[in-house]
């Protein structure tokens, strides 16, 4: 385990995110309630990188939205010891879909993120420029989102989220739509940015390899509906990590096998319920 992460985890420290008995239900169109997740207990320490894996449709994104304050929950969501009411102002959210404003250039998209904080426009643009340089897009400032590749758009979104300096980072399969190589590179970029000032990260993915190479802890969720947490694995791979190298290490494979043993049954169950549901 990396020294930075382990010393940041004494029990008396306030958790960055604490979920206690969280349950999220939706009213469906036919009037019945659909319970997406139930009895979720999860604590994320300041500076800890937690990845959530689980079969498709298990409510991973729902859980993230609960922490963001985008959906209402039963139970308690605590942010640095304070119960969450309304939108989570201390969190930044990187979405799975393209969420940049298509009518703004890369620079304007990043700079606008500082407007709610009341940063003067000129200063915001200056900071946005330096953030875009940090994510490797220094020469693409005036491009509109449609003129950028999928990976480049994700970099802009990353800069847009990080420029606000949120204390908690929520990421919903942010690199899902990208090809495998770009995804690994984005993971490395994320880790290098994260390592400079560690924020608490909640990273949802369906890709186990990605989860292991990024996180301090991997949490496994069961198949939905009424999904819950069934296992948590500490990832004791040393940092700094480079995903291409770390995936070759024996310890990586051991972790992969251990987590997959938990995950496999749930994936099969999700698959079976999906097919039997269609037949019913």
């Amino acid at each position, binding site marked *: 385990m990396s020294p930075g992460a382990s010393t940041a985890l004494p029990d008396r420290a306030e958790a960055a995110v604490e979920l206690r008995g969280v349950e999220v239900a939706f009213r469906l169109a036919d009037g019945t309630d659909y319970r997406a997740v139930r009895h979720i207990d999860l604590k994320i320490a300041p500076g800890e990188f937690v990845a959530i894996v689980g079969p498709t449709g298990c409510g991973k994104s729902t859980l993230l939205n609960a922490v963001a304050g*985008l959906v209402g929950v039963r139970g308690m969501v605590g942010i640095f010891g304070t119960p969450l009411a309304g*939108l989570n102002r201390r*969190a930044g959210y990187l979405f799975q879909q393209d*969420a*940049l*404003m298509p*009518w703004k250039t890369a620079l304007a998209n990043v700079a*606008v*993120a500082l407007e709610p904080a009341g940063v003067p426009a000129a200063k915001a643009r200056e900071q946005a420029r330096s953030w875009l340089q940090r994510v490797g897009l220094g020469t693409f400032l005036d491009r509109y989102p449609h003129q950028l590749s999928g990976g480049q758009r994700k970099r802009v979104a990353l800069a847009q989220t990080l420029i606000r300096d949120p204390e908690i980072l929520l990421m919903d399969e942010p690199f899902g739509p990208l090809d495998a190589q770009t995804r690994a590179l984005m993971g490395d970029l994320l880790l290098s940015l994260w390592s400079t000032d560690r924020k608490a990260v909640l990273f949802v993915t369906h890709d186990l390899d990605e989860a292991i190479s990024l996180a301090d802890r991997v949490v496994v969720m069961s198949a939905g509906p009424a999904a819950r947490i069934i296992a948590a694995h500490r990832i004791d791979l040393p940092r700094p990590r480079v995903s291409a190298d770390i995936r070759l290490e024996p310890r990586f494979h051991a972790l992969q096998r251990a987590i997959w043993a938990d995950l496999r049954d749930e994936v099969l169950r999700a698959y079976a319920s999906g097919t039997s549901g269609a037949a019913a």
Partner: protein
Amino acid sequence: MRKRARLLLIQLAIAVAVLLIWYVGSSVPIGGAYFLPKFFFSTPGDVLARIIKMFSNASIWRHIYITLTETALAFFIGSGLGIVIGFWFARRPTVAAVLDPYVKAANALPRVVLAPIFMLWFGLGIWSKVALGVTLVFFIVFFNVYQGVKEVSPAVLANARMLGMSDRQLMRHVYWPAALSWMFSSLHTAVGFALVGAVVGEYLGSAAGIGYLIQEAEGVFDVAGVFAGMIVLAVVVLVIDWLVTLIENRLLAWRPRAAERF
């Protein structure tokens, strides 16, 4: 560039062919009869002479000016109302649901039948034509803005909210640009309908404007005058359309299609 020259050549060839058929049909007797009798079709030469006469005594500029004024007023007033009410409907679903049948009924009504009413209300001057144009432009802009605001991508909206934007900032950075992009995509149609409103209004009763010129010529079976008025109108429409395209390319630079034209 060569492709463009070729395109222009073909376009010119079509014009020449039409003029030639028109000329032969109206001026050269075939088997003792005219294929396009002068009384009904005039001749290219007569129409050209009429256009030159129109422009030689400068009065035509006043008519063009009046038609363009009506078009511009109809466009801006109609767009303004369309934007405001489109926003209002999109942000207040209850209002939209209550007024839905009335909007549909008003939109389905052929606007020409309103022209006499507007003439009673606003007189024979430009305002009755502006009113007619407004009823046409309004619905185009209104439906587009309504759609644009309602169909803002949920991801873009959620992202903007997570960035901490207030309602006012959401309006400025998300709803407004989304609505405008839909509105601009219908710019050609809206401007075109503003002109239709002006000309049809003039045609039905007025003392000035291109529509009035055409109507006046038609009243005395002056076919050359009707064709001359139509050609002036067509040129005006082409110029306006070209200007709109310029504006559109500037305003929608962020859109994939507008940018790929380069």
